[in-house]
Each structure stands twice: as C-alpha cells, then as structure tokens.
C-alpha cells in the first residue's frame, strides 16, 4: 500500500486536479447509487407490495407500505369479498412449503459443509496415493452442471420410489465440489498441519481431531459455506420440480411456479406478493445478518487475485 511518501505525492497530485477529481468522484457516486438503487429497488418494491391490496398494486407504484399486510396474510373477514389470504388459501400450503424448504435447505447445508469440508480436510492433511488425481477430478467436475445428469437421476429416483421424498434433494449435497474447493483453499491459507500433529501426539484419533479440534477452528469458513449452500438449495427450482409434485411436499419455488400457473386475471396481487415475500424474507434476513462474511466469501470461493 501507499507509503507516506507516495501519499504526500498523491495529495499534491490531488490538489493539482482537485476540481476534475471532485467531478469524477461525483459521477462515480451517482452512477454507483443508481445501480445500487436498481439492485435493491425490486426487492424493496416486492416487500412493499406484500403490504398493499390488489387494487392499490394494480393502479399505482408506491414506495410506502400499505396497511394490507394482515389481510394479505390471513384474509379479509370483515368485508364481503371472498379473499381468504395466503395462509388460509386451501390450495396454497405456504406454511408447509416454508417448512419443507427449511428442512431441505437446512439438511443440505449441514451435509454439504460437514462432508465436503471433511473431504477437503482429507485431501489437505493426508498424502495418500491418488490424492492428486482425486483433486484434479473434482476440479474437472466442478463446472459440470447437475442438470446434465438430471434425466438419469430422475429415472433412478423413480426406480427407487424416491419421488416426493426429500432424500434425492438432501443426500447429494454430501458431494459438493464447490464447497470442497472453497474449504481446500481456506485450509491451505489458514490450517497448519502442525495442529493435527500436535493432536496426534496427545493421542487424539483422526476423526476426533477433525470433529473436536479442526471444526471449531474452521467454524467461520464452515458458516459462510453453510449460508451459500442453504441459499442455493432454498432457491433451487429445477431439481425439486422434477422430484416433488405432491402439494404437501412442495418447496417455496414450486409454490411460486404453482401461483404462476394460475390465470393472470384471477390472481389477487396482494396475495401473490405475499407468497413472494415469504419466499425471499428468510434469505434476506440471513443476508443482512451476515453480509460482511458472505461478501468476503464470494472471492474466497474462486481464484485468488
């Protein structure tokens, strides 16, 4: 980084061109603000619309919340309209959908960080024959999308009578190449082998070392990867659409697709926006709590600059 000498030079430089620089900075801030606004605007609007009534949404855009939040959620009991609200709609099982999404995503996140982290640890710590070949293979398969094997997967799950079951959505998370790669990168930079050797001298067996000594050390990295796995699984539409079709098994993206399948003219927009809001709020909450770590994790997961 800049030393005091270069800083002084920069300051002199700044004074030379201070007006030009100020203008340049203002342009930057304006453009950045426009795009930051674009990035957040639609989600803000989505949440706002979830609190407004069908008529309000249809006739005008508003940036201020309405007072239809509870009506969109629970229905309108006072008026003579037939509107029942998201939670009481007999055709929508949104609470069940949220629970299903939570189960699938939670288990996927746990399995993928634990087992793929364990795999990274195995490759990082032990020099077994075939290690390099294994590592290279994972690098190769990392960019192959799961969709290309979806046909065989769907067929296999049909044969095993595992459709409308969470197992096909949860168990494959054990083998997550991206989590493996991230954890391997992370271990290379911050897990000295000495710790493992010290544990051995103290008589800890290898799995205990991993579970009781390594896991706590790597907790931050595991947490970030758990969040990424959780959101990926929470937002996943393709695989659940193949595997699940019973209403009581559907996850949130499938409920959105279900609502999309209804006739546009019959939709109550307040209700639809409420479904969308319920689908994105859990991830939004997680993001705003951990955004610092998540944003930092984005670069760690890929190549280092």
């Amino acid at each position, binding site marked *: 980084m800049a030393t005091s000498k270069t800083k002084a030079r920069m300051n002199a430089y700044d004074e030379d061109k201070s007006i030009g620089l100020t203008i340049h900075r203002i342009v930057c801030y304006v453009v950045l603000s426009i795009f930051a606004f674009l990035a957040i605007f639609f989600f803000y609007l989505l949440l706002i619309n979830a609190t407004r009534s069908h008529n309000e949404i249809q006739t005008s855009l508003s940036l201020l919340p309405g007072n239809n939040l509870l009506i969109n959620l629970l229905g309108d009991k006072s008026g003579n309209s037939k509107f029942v609200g998201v939670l009481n709609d007999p055709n929508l099982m949104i609470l069940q959908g949220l629970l299903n999404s939570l189960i699938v995503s939670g288990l996927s996140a746990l399995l993928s960080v634990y087992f793929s982290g364990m*795999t990274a640890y195995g490759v990082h710590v032990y020099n077994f024959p075939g290690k390099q070949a294994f590592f290279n293979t994972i690098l190769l398969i990392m960019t192959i999308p799961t969709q290309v094997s979806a046909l065989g997967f769907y067929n296999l799950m049909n044969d095993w009578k595992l459709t409308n079951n969470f197992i096909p959505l949860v168990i494959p998370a054990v083998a997550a190449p991206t989590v493996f790669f991230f954890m391997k990168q992370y271990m290379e930079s911050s897990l000295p082998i000495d710790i493992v050797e010290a544990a051995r001298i103290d008589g800890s067996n290898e799995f205990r070392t991993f579970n009781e000594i390594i896991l706590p050390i790597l907790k931050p990295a595991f947490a970030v990867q758990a969040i990424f796995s959780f959101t990926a699984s929470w937002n996943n539409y393709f695989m659940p659409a193949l595997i699940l079709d019973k209403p009581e098994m559907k996850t949130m993206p499938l409920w959105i697709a279900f609502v999309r399948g209804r006739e546009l003219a019959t939709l109550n927009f307040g209700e639809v*926006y409420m479904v969308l809001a319920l689908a994105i709020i859990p991830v939004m909450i997680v993001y705003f709590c951990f955004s610092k770590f998540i944003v930092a994790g984005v670069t760690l997961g890929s190549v280092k600059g």
Partner: protein
Amino acid sequence: MANASVAAPKKHKGISYEKWGYFFIAPFIIVYLIFNLVPLLQTFYFSFFEKYTNTATWETIERFVGFDQYVNLFTEGRIFSYLGNTMIMWVMGFIPQIVISLLFAYWFTSVRLRLKGLGFFKTVMYMPNLIMAAAFSMMFMLLFSNIGPINEIIKNFTNGEAFAFMGHTWSARGLVALMNFLMWFGNTTILLMAAMMGVDASIVEAAEIDGCTSSQIFWKIVLPIIRPILIYVLITSLVGGLQMFDVPSILTNGKGNPNDSTTTLIMYLNTLISRSKNYGQGGCVSVVIFIICAVLSMIVYYFFTDAGVEKREKRKSFKIAKGGK
C-alpha cells in the same frame, strides 16, 4: 523444526496416517458415484436407446437405436434454436454485466478516487445474487404484464394501449437478460475487484508519473494483468448461462413465449424429462450440454492448474527446506 523431527521417527515405526485420507474422502466419493456418476452414465445410455412408457400397461419398452436419436435431434433442429435463445439471452445480459463490473471494480480499487462506502455498495449490489430467481422472475412478470403497473404508465402515453412485453421476442428476451444482469453484476464486480486489488500499486503509480491517462492505465496495464480472472469470469458465467432455467421458465410459465423465443436448453430438457417423458431425446440433449460444459471446464481446469503452478512450486521448495533440516 521440532515437528519434523517428531514425525520422522514415527515413520520408522511404521505408523502411517496417510491411509486415513481414504476414510475422509469416502462419503464424498460414494455419494458422488451413486447420485451423480451413475445418473450421468444412465443419461448417456438413454441417448442410445429408444425408451418409452406404454401408459396403458405401464410397460417400459427399450430398443437400441445407436446414433439415430442424435440424427433426429440435429435434423429436427429445435436444439439449435434453443441453444441460440440461451446464448442470445446470456450475451444480452453478460455484455452490460462485464462492462459495468469492470468499471465499478476499477473505480472501487482506484487509488486516485479513493471512494468511500465500498462495503455498502458491495453489500447492496451482491444481494440480488442470493434472492430466489423464481420470485424475482414472478415479480417481473407481474410488473411488466399487460395489466401491470409499468403498462399503466405506458398507457398514459399510448392512449390506453398496453405494450405486451411478453408478447414480443426482443422485449421478452430483454427482460430475462435484465434480470440476469441485475442478479450477477454485483458478484462479478466483487470478483474483478479482488483481481484488481492484486495489481501492484507501484506499477500503476509509475505509469501515472510517466503521464499515462486513466484510460491508458486501464486498457494497457490493469486489463492485461487481470486477464486470467476475466477468462475465469467469462467461462463460469457461460456455464451458468447454459443452465438458464428459473428466470425464463417462471416468466413465461414454462412456455418460452413468444413462439419459443425464450425457451432455453434446460427448459427443453425439463419438458423432455417431466412432460413428454422422451428419455432418448432428453439423453441426447443432456449429452450435448455435457460436451459443451466439459470443453469449457477443461479450459477452466487448465487455467486453474496454470494459476496453481506458482503455489505448488512454493510448496515444493518448502518441503525441500523442511526435509533438508
């Protein structure tokens, strides 16, 4: 080092820990084999067999047909137009994405500008990447539908006539591209920023003293240095683009309106698997996507291993130093 001297006699006693590695990687391998490799091979297998279910008797009939289904697929030609759709929508989103991301990354890392509020901008711009694409797409459908609020505004200028965004090829594709852009520009900005921070500040400074303009520094110094990361971003984005499904599928209710102009490869595959149960054709489509991705992943792989050369070299010399002691 003390550790080295402790580890050495252990080896003489014949206690080797290295085999434990297999136990650690076993769950990964087993699950990968069962849930990825077997289905993948089965997908390949289906592409050479005609398989259909007789819905009356639930009997499955299988017949080896060799490359016939591939010939069918290519002569029928729909796969080319779907690949075309996918690529067009990807390019329409990717070009603004890479331009904006390069610009923002350059601004954020510029020593001269020293912008404030980096954390805030990064956090806000990355957010759409984590939000459910299906929800985002559904919302766009509502906003841009003929009775949506955007058209309420348009109607003021067109004497009450709505513009059917989902009824015109380029506006429908444009909406998909716009969503992809909004979802990914933050992610790309963060990646390119990390790359640009790796550019040695003294090189830039020297160029400045030599009288280079900002744009010269950007095009002649920064861009060539971060080229490997640019290639990485390009290819991972391309592979992501090939998987485009959620956004166009929800936007058009799985129909690819208008006239199949927004139907992507994966939407086609999805229809073949779950609606028409055409396993043979589905297998062929999968194999085609697999081959494209495999080629792309080879490029990433070589890139990774080239980038890893330095690191490996360093580790090797470290080991030699350790052994020497």
